[in-house]
C-alpha cells in the first residue's frame, strides 16, 4: 500500500444532525400540533421549496415543508460511491413513452430534503435576455410574462447566497461576472478549452458552478473528488439542504420528511384549505393552511394537481385551461465522448467545470431557431459503461476492453434547447403507487426544430472533441433536465400560473419550481428555479395580508430584500463587464 498523505479517517462522533463534515443543525425543529392551522404548506423541499421555506420563515410566516424523501444527515446517509447513491433519486414508478421517451429517476429527479439540488452537477448559468422573448424575437415557443431585467437582481442575490464560483467575466447573454473565484481545471475542462481554442470558439472555465471555491461559513471548499451528482458529502456544492434549510429551521420552519402529499384539499369557498399526506408511518393525515405552494418539480407538481381533482375541479386543480401537465420540456443532452492517447482521468474535479455558450442564440444562417451550449461532464465508471453500450455498441469482451481505457476518455455534454410543445405532457396512468395514487405518464416527442438543432449541436460538439485532439469520437443521445408542466403566463386560457406562480384558478394555491418555466433556453435551469422561488417569496411577503386572506396580491414587482438572505451571504463585489 502506498503511504497516504493523510491519516485514516474516522467520522466525527456526534449526536448532532450533520450536513457535511463541519456543518451541524443544532436548533430543535419547531413542530406544529395536529389540527393547528399554519400559514403556508410547501409541497416538496427541493431547489425551490428549500428557498421558499427559508424566505417565508425568515419573514415570520408559519410554514411547514413536506418532503416525500428523508431529511438527510449527509455524514451518515451519503456515500462516496456511484451504485450506493440510488436513494438520492425519485425512484417511484413513472411510465414514459412517446416517440422519444425520456429517462427519469437519476437523470433528473431528486428525492429527499434538497431535492434535485442534491444531485445536480451544479452548473449555474443565467438564462439569456432572449430566452424571455422567444416568440417576439424568433417566432417560436412563447414569451415569458417577465423579462430578464425582472429576474436579474435575484440572479445576483443568489449567486452570492449559493455561492456560485466562476470567472470574473462571463461574456454571453447579459455579460456579467462572479464574485467567487473559479475552480481549477480538471482533465475534461482542459480538453474543452483546447478544442474551443483550436476552433476559435469563446469558452470559460472554472464555473459558473454552485460549488464553493473557498470555505463558506460552515461549509468546506471543494476537494475535487468528482462525486458531485452522488451528493456532495463535503458540503461544498450547494443544495438547498446546506444553503437555506438550516436557516429556515433556525427561523422556525418545520420540515416533515418522509411525508408524501397525495392531495391538495379545497374548501367549500373554493380556496385551497391544506394538504392530505401519508406520514412516515404510513398514516394518512391532513394539514390545514391558509396557502399551499406546490414545489414538486415538472412531473410531481402536475401529477399532484391532477390527482387533486374534486367537485368543481373535475379536470384537476388549476386546470380550467387544460394546460396542467402540458408543454413539458427536456434539453437535448447528448454526451459526446472522445478517446485521447494520454490519460485524462475524468473522475477527478467537478463534472461541471467549463462551458461555452457561443452557440446559444438563434443564428439566421441555420435552418432552425434557438441554440445550444457545450459543457463538461464527468461520468463515473457505471455511467460511462452505459454510455459506451449505446455510443459504441460495446458488450462482452468489447465492453471490458473499452472500460480498461476509461481513463483515456473525456466527455462533453451538449445542452440543446427543445421548444415547448402542447402534446409533450404529464398525464395520469392507470397504475397506482404504494399510496394508491395514480402515477405519472409522460409522453415526449421531438419536433423538426428540435431534431435539426440537436443534430447540429451534436456535430459541432464532436468537432470540438476532435479539435481537442481526440483519436476517436462517439456519442450517446440523451436528454437532460425537466421543465414545464404548469407554465406561467398572463393568459389564464393558455397557462396555469401568473408571473408570481399563483394559479389563475385558485388565488391561495401557488406553484413554484421548474414546472412554471415557459421556456428553458440552453442553460441549466437550477439557478433560475431558485431565483424564481426568491421572487415568489418576495411577492407573498409584500402582499402578506391579501395572500393569507386568499385574495390575489398586487401585480407590482416586489422590492428585492437583501435582509432576508441567510446571514453573511450578502456582500458587494459583482464584477462589472465592460465592453
Amino acid at each position, binding site marked *: *500500500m502506498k503511504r497516504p498523505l493523510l491519516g485514516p479517517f474516522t467520522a466525527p462522533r456526534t449526536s448532532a444532525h450533520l450536513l457535511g463534515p463541519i456543518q451541524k443543525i443544532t436548533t430543535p425543529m419547531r413542530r406544529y400540533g395536529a389540527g393547528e392551522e399554519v400559514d403556508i404548506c410547501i409541497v416538496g423541499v427541493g431547489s425551490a421549496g428549500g428557498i421558499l421555506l427559508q424566505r417565508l420563515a425568515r419573514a415570520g410566516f408559519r410554514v411547514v415543508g413536506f418532503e416525500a424523501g428523508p431529511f438527510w444527515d449527509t455524514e451518515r446517509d451519503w456515500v462516496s460511491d456511484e451504485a450506493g447513491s440510488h436513494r438520492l433519486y425519485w425512484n417511484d414508478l413513472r411510465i414514459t413513452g412517446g416517440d422519444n421517451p425520456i429517462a427519469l429517476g437519476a437523470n433528473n429527479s431528486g428525492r429527499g430534503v434538497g431535492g434535485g439540488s442534491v444531485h445536480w452537477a451544479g452548473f449555474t448559468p443565467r438564462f439569456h435576455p432572449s430566452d424571455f422573448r422567444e416568440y417576439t424575437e424568433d417566432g417560436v415557443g412563447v414569451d415569458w410574462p417577465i423579462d430578464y431585467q425582472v429576474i436579474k437582481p435575484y440572479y445576483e442575490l443568489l449567486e452570492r447566497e449559493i455561492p456560485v464560483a466562476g470567472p470574473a467575466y462571463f461574456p454571453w447573454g447579459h455579460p456579467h461576472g462572479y464574485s467567487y473565484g473559479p475552480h481549477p481545471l480538471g482533465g475534461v475542462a482542459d480538453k474543452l478549452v483546447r478544442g474551443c481554442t483550436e476552433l476559435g470558439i469563446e469558452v470559460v472555465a472554472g464555473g459558473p458552478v454552485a460549488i464553493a471555491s473557498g470555505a463558506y461559513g460552515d461549509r468546506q471548499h471543494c476537494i475535487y473528488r468528482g462525486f458531485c451528482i452522488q451528493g456532495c458529502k463535503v458540503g461544498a456544492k450547494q443544495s438547498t439542504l446546506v444553503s437555506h434549510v438550516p436557516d429556515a429551521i433556525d427561523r422556525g420552519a418545520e420540515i416533515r420528511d418522509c411525508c408524501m402529499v397525495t392531495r391538495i384539499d379545497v374548501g367549500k369557498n373554493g380556496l385551497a384549505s391544506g394538504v392530505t399526506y401519508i406520514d412516515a408511518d404510513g398514516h394518512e393525515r391532513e394539514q390545514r393552511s391558509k396557502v399551499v405552494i406546490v414545489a414538486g418539480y415538472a412531473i410531481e407538481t402536475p401529477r399532484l394537481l391532477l390527482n387533486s381533482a374534486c367537485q368543481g375541479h373535475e379536470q384537476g386543480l388549476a386546470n380550467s385551461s387544460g394546460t396542467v401537465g402540458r408543454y413539458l420540456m427536456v434539453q437535448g443532452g447528448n454526451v459526446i465522448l472522445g478517446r485521447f492517447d494520454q490519460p485524462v482521468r475524468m473522475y477527478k474535479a467537478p463534472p461541471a467545470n467549463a462551458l461555452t455558450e457561443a452557440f446559444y442564440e438563434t443564428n439566421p444562417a441555420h435552418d432552425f431557431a434557438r441554440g445550444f451550449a457545450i459543457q463538461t461532464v464527468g461520468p463515473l465508471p457505471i455511467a460511462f459503461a452505459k454510455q459506451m453500450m449505446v455510443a459504441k455498441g460495446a458488450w462482452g469482451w468489447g465492453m471490458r476492453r473499452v472500460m480498461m481505457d476509461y481513463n483515456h476518455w473525456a466527455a462533453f455534454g451538449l445542452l440543446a434547447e427543445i421548444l415547448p410543445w402542447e402534446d409533450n405532457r404529464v398525464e395520469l396512468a392507470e397504475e397506482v403507487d404504494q399510496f394508491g395514487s395514480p402515477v405519472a405518464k409522460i409522453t415526449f416527442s421531438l419536433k423538426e426544430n428540435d431534431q435539426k438543432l440537436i443534430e447540429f449541436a451534436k456535430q459541432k460538439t464532436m468537432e470540438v472533441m476532435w479539435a481537442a485532439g481526440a483519436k476517436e469520437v462517439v456519442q450517446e443521445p440523451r436528454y437532460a433536465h425537466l421543465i414545464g408542466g404548469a407554465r406561467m403566463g398572463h393568459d389564464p386560457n393558455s397557462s396555469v400560473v401568473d408571473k408570481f406562480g399563483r394559479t389563475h384558478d385558485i388565488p391561495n394555491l401557488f406553484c413554484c419550481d421548474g414546472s412554471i418555466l415557459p421556456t428553458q433556453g440552453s442553460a441549466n435551469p437550477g439557478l433560475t428555479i431558485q431565483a424564481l422561488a426568491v421572487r415568489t417569496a418576495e411577492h407573498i411577503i409584500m402582499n402578506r395580508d391579501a395572500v393569507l386572506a386568499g385574495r390575489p396580491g398586487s401585480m407590482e414587482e416586489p422590492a428585492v430584500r437583501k435582509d432576508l438572505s441567510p446571514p453573511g451571504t450578502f456582500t458587494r463585489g459583482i464584477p462589472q463587464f465592460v465592453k
Partner: protein
Amino acid sequence: MTTYPSARPNSDNLPVDPSTGETRPPQAQPGYYPGFSTLSQEPFWDEATRAVVLRRVHEQPPIRFFTPDEVALMEALTARLLPQDDRDDEHRIPLVPTIDDRLFTGRIDGYRFEDMPPDGDAYRIGLRGIDAVAEHLYRRRFMDLGATEQDEVLWTLHRGEPPAGEDIWRQVPVSRFWLLINQDALESYYAHPYAWDEVGFGGPAYPRGYFRLEGGQPEPWEVREQRYNWAAPPDARSDRYEHLGGPSTHHVSAGQEGSH
C-alpha cells in the same frame, strides 16, 4: 460464500497475447494498473462509504427472485455479457445475486417504458426468448452451448434481429431487453472495487479528495498505466463494436444517470 452454480472458465475462452498467439492465463487483476488497489485505501474512506462498499465485497444477497433454472441461465448469460474468464477464481465479480436482489426487492430507476412490462416480468419473458433463439439456431438450450455459440445467440439480440421467439419479443421489445440485461450486468460489475482497480478508477474519495487534476496524472497512492496488448478469445463475437440494432428511437433507452 456464493451458493449458486458458477460458469467455469475454459481455456478456449481465454484472451490471447496477439504477438505470440498464446492464451493469457487468468490473473487476479486484469487491466493496466498492476498493484493499484482501491480496497487498500479503505482506511481513508468515510464510515458510511466503507460500510456500503465492504458489504458489497464480502456479502452476497441470497437468490430469491430467479428459479434455479433461471439462475443457471443468468450465470451463463452474464458470463458472456461481461466475460470474466481472464480473472482467477478468487477475483471474479458475482453479478447474478445483485440482479436477483434488485428484482426481488422491486428496486427500479424511477420509470418504465410504456411498451415494457415490469422488470421482473421482462426478465422472465426475455430469458425464454434467449432460449428460443438458442433452440432455433443450435437445437439446444442457451446454457448448454459453448461460448462462441452463446455469443452468436446474443449477437442477434444486439442487432435487434432475433430469428425466433417472435411472440416473446412482441411482449418485450428486444432492443429494450438487451439494454436492460446489459445495464444490470454493468451496474453490478463496475460497482465492485476489483473492477475499479481494473480500469484505474480511484473509487471512494471522501474526505481525502484529489489534487492532481490536470494531465491525467496519478495521485501518490494511484499508479501509472502500464498497457499490454491482448485480444479476445479468437472466436468471441463480442470484441467487435457494432451499433445497436433496432429502431433508432430505442437507442435512448439505456438507464441514465445524471450528466449535466
